[in-house]
């Protein structure tokens, strides 16, 4: 099958080569093929690597929680309150951001969020601020939301719109209060879709370097920034590969666990 060859050449090849590269050595600014654990030992012994790692996990988790919570009411409204047609248009509009340059949008936030920017200008008219938002975690999170929120809203909306309405009516009919319907009927039925949305949100936040760099000011660099820093300093590609492999291992573990939970059949107890 030519497809397999193609994917092997241009997908598996790069990934495996990167893993191999994490064992290479750098001598006199040139990479030499080798099989040594020095890069691993070096990265794992560095305090900044681990603090970056936990910081990245932490901020990607916060980002995921934010996106899931911010998206839910909107997705709920689109799924249950809006007409079929409105929903179609809403999803269409939510797709648009994926096809506008993320960089340009980030640059735009740069201006909007700055101390002389739009948000502070508006707050200023009611006597508030100015607040510092750039170069803080707020800036980073705004960037992550720019990247992930449309996707999460789409996934949540589609998931909930696919719920069989009669199940909800049945629950109401059996005396379930509205909030309890959400908790006991809608969320369990949407579990798989929501978990996938959360996983994608986490992956995107975990791997994005633009938001933490441009909006977060690299304050506590995340792993993607560390990768870039490592590559530009002294040809340390093998160490960048170590970071990348650790990131991939983290994401794969997370994704497989999440998918296992999402599609776990209830045991017959």
């Amino acid at each position, binding site marked *: 099958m030519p497809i397999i060859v193609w994917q092997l050449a241009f997908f598996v090849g790069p990934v495996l080569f990167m893993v191999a590269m994490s064992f290479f050595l750098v001598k006199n600014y040139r990479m030499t093929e080798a099989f040594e654990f020095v890069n691993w030992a070096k990265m794992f012994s560095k305090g900044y690597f681990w603090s970056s790692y936990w*910081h990245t996990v932490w901020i990607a988790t916060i980002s995921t929680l934010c996106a899931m919570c911010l998206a839910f009411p909107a997705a709920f409204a689109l799924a249950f309150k809006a007409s079929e047609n409105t929903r179609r248009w809403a999803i269409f509009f939510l797709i648009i951001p994926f096809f506008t340059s993320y960089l340009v949008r980030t640059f735009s936030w740069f201006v909007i969020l700055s101390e002389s920017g739009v948000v502070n200008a508006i707050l200023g008219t009611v006597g508030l601020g100015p607040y510092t938002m750039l170069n803080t975690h707020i800036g980073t999170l705004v960037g992550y939301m720019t990247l992930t929120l449309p996707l999460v809203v789409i996934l949540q909306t589609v998931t909930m719109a696919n719920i069989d309405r009669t199940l909800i009516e049945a629950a109401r009919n059996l005396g379930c209060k509205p909030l309890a319907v959400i908790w006991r009927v809608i969320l369990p039925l949407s579990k798989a879709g929501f978990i996938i949305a959360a996983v994608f949100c986490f992956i995107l936040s975990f791997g994005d370097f633009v938001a933490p760099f441009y909006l977060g000011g*690299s304050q506590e660099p995340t792993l993607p920034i560390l990768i870039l820093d490592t590559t530009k300093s*002294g040809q340390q590609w093998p160490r960048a590969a170590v970071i990348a492999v650790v990131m991939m291992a983290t994401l794969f573990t997370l994704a497989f666990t999440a998918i296992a939970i999402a599609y776990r059949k209830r045991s017959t107890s």
Partner: protein
Amino acid sequence: MTKPAKSKSSLLTNRRDFLRVGGGAILAAPFINKVHAAPVEINMLAWYGHGEPDVVAEFEAANNVKFVPKYYAGGDNMLALIAQSPPGTYDIILSDGEFVQQLNAAGYIEELEPADYPFDDMLHPDFQQFPGHWSDGKLHSVILRGGHLGVSYNKNAITAEEAQSYACFWKPEIKGKVGHFDWHLPNLGMISLFEGNAADLWNLDDAAWGAVQDKTMSLREQIGGFFDYGGTFNSLKNGEMQAMCGIGDWITGTLERDGAPVASVIPKEGGIQFTESYCIGKNSEKADIVKKFMQYMLSPAGQVKSAQMAAYPGFCVTKGGRAALIEADPKEAMRSHQMDGMANEPIALINEGRIHYRDIPTQQSLEDWNDFWSEYKNA
């Protein structure tokens, strides 16, 4: 070894790094060649901005040539690009002063005829005999311009007096408003100067290096962010950052022209200089016209163009150039202190020994400096 455009590269560099790693990679002959037709094309390898119309348009029109610029983002990036292209690809190369030696050693550049260039007119003797530009009495490169790095600050937050020392970065009022240009060399170089290492700023023994690290760490809680070229620009302009460590006039100068209340000065502890020089690519078939261009750029008119360059400013190296600038654009001349007898006049600063040409650490490896920088960012 601080240099504006290099700094601007920050993120950019890794692409180039890899191009070098993949030694065998063949770079397609510049695709752009097919786009333009008629005039003679001159392939230029340079820092960003040097092939832009504001610099070259006049020369192009007068000589029916067309510059096809390829911009690099660091000295080793430049070397990699040349190495990966067929010989003769680049007709003119704009190099960092200290990389000329390596270009020459690798045989990438042609020998020059000293009589073709106005060496008598140079503002400083160092510019006539710049390290590495000559070897065995043969000339390989001519200096075009330079720039100094020091304290860059917002005039509303820091007074001119305070800016006279790197100590102003520690000013309590600007906590969280000090930015770093995200590259360890200029930053650590400045701290080294602040530590009083002066001419030995790159040559630190363990104790001095430890002291530099401690001093740097003490700055950490003042810091509001780490920026590349664009981020540095933006955060100084919009007031997010009130002072910036690791840059100089090449950024604030551009902002000043745009009306921002920012400035750069060389503090009493001293500053760092970047230098840019022209070379003719080996086996270039257009050496004659390139020579003409270099003569043009070193002529008073060309020096004015260089000083006014939109991407980032640099000071004139010839007396004629400076005189022409003062006449043509006194405002820019004034702004960049390029008038004899002005405070912080660049040549005077060099003569006073307050400026140090850039270099790399001699007792530590670059890797040590890098690792420390990563730790610092994560602290």
